[in-house]
């Protein structure tokens, strides 16, 4: 499903503080696969994730999703692609603190020309999947860490994307919530979703479901 060929990412190219974040990455991710990107901070895994999410553009190399070169699309199309195919769960959850859960979850659906009923339906399904339905009217800043996480998950799932990307998902969670998170991931994987997780948490080291482990260091894939 995802093919990365000879990808490089250089920040501040040709300037004094040039930083070569990703060096000649080659990676293939199959449909329905669960991929764990392991590496310490600064190894480039977040950068790679953001490139897969089409949030930043590579300096050179190709990113093909379903055989379409998405890295070089104009903004209108990358946004459309992101809405329809990708669910992104960032490290700091990045929710609208002053809005309630339901309003947060439906944000990705707003630019699509859906009717209110369709929106409500999708939102309810997503909230149920993430197990946050019971808090749908609660303002986000009053939620606990784990609940915020689940709100972010619901938001990522609301448009039924094929690809789910998580950036250090357990970094802000305690042990109990991390385990809960793992459960949700397993469930999603069973539903056929392709999942890529960038993490350095050891909880992902010995998983009991089929997965691929990729180590990164200093911008390169090691194993």
């Amino acid at each position, binding site marked *: 499903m995802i093919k990365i060929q000879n990808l490089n990412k250089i920040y501040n*190219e040709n300037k004094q503080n040039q930083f070569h974040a990703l060096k000649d990455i080659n990676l293939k991710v199959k449909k329905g696969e669960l991929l764990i990107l392991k590496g310490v901070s600064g190894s480039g895994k977040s950068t790679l994730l953001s490139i897969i999410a089409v949030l930043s*553009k*590579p*300096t*050179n190399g190709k990113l093909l999703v379903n055989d379409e070169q998405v890295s*070089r*699309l*104009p*903004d*209108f*199309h990358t946004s459309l692609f992101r809405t329809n195919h990708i669910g992104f769960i960032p490290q700091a959850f990045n929710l609208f603190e002053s809005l309630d859960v339901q309003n947060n979850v439906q944000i990705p659906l707003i630019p699509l020309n859906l009717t209110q009923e369709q929106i409500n339906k999708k939102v309810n399904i997503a909230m149920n999947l993430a197990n946050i339905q019971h808090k749908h009217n609660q303002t986000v800043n009053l939620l606990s860490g784990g609940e915020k996480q689940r709100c972010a998950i619901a938001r990522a799932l609301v448009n039924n994307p094929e690809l789910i990307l998580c950036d250090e998902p357990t970094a802000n969670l305690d042990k109990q919530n991390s385990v809960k998170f793992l459960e949700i991931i397993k469930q999603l994987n069973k539903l056929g979703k392709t999942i890529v997780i960038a993490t350095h948490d050891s909880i992902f080291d010995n998983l009991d479901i089929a997965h691929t482990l990729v180590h990164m260091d200093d911008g390169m894939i090691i194993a």
Partner: protein
Amino acid sequence: MHNILFSNNVIVFLFIETLILILQIIAFVLSLNIVKLWDFKSNTSTQYKLEKRAYLIILIIFFSIVVKIFMLPYFAFSLDKLSTIVPGAMCAAGVITANDYGQYLLVLKIMILFFMGIWLILNALDIKAKDYPYFKIKTWLFILIFLFILFEYALDILYYTNISTDSLVTCCSTIYGVVQGTGLPFNLDIMKLLILFYLLYILIIVVNIQKLAFLSAVTNSFYMYIAYYCVVYFFGTYIYELPTHKCPFCMLQSDYYYIGYFIWASLFLGVFFGISSFVLELILKQNQNKLYIYSNIFISLFVFICSFYVLRYYFINGVFL
């Protein structure tokens, strides 16, 4: 002259034209920059920056178009209000002919809206495509529009500063002639012109349904010419309910419920969509189906409004004028 320039409407109009001009200059400078360096295939951060900058240009142009669409009827409205201080004028017709610039200015404004309409359609298609195929054409079209706008601004100022409040202007009754048949296209009389009017209308509908671009453009342009005369010399008289009152501007006044704006707008839109389908097909080498439908809708609306007034008069009074 200074009386004109102190009219509320003129001040507001010129102020807004100035604002839009300033925005357009910004967009123009950016466009020049972008069109020089644009290369969609490259991966450099400069190109990404250019793509982002292009959005500012698009935003400015969108905003300018919306404002200019409102400014055209507002322009007609300001002229109408000036008719009370320009001696001899009883409606905008007299004010427009107060100097040589007026009619050219009006035509130029309509032309600018036309080109901006084409730019809008082009832009919508450009963004939908995956590699900005029409970017350069779009930008050159904008540069052309900008030059027109510059020229329009100069004409705006020349026009308003040259309206005299001392010398008499001719009113519509003199401009548009009281004698039927003189000044009509091809020296036809009004009956034959009307037949032509309706025949052309049917032809346009057919051509549009068949999506024949070139014919559509030709018939629509011709139609605009014929329709103008029909409205002034025939349909207008039914709006004013006076066989000698022939004027394209008086119907913009409140006495007639501002119907003039609707009539001219529907005619303009119908003709615009008809002609633009041809122009776009030239540029893009592909058919734009929706445009034909819009053309039909607006031309039909136009014919409906015009015919309505004639029929209404007949039903109320039992005779034709």
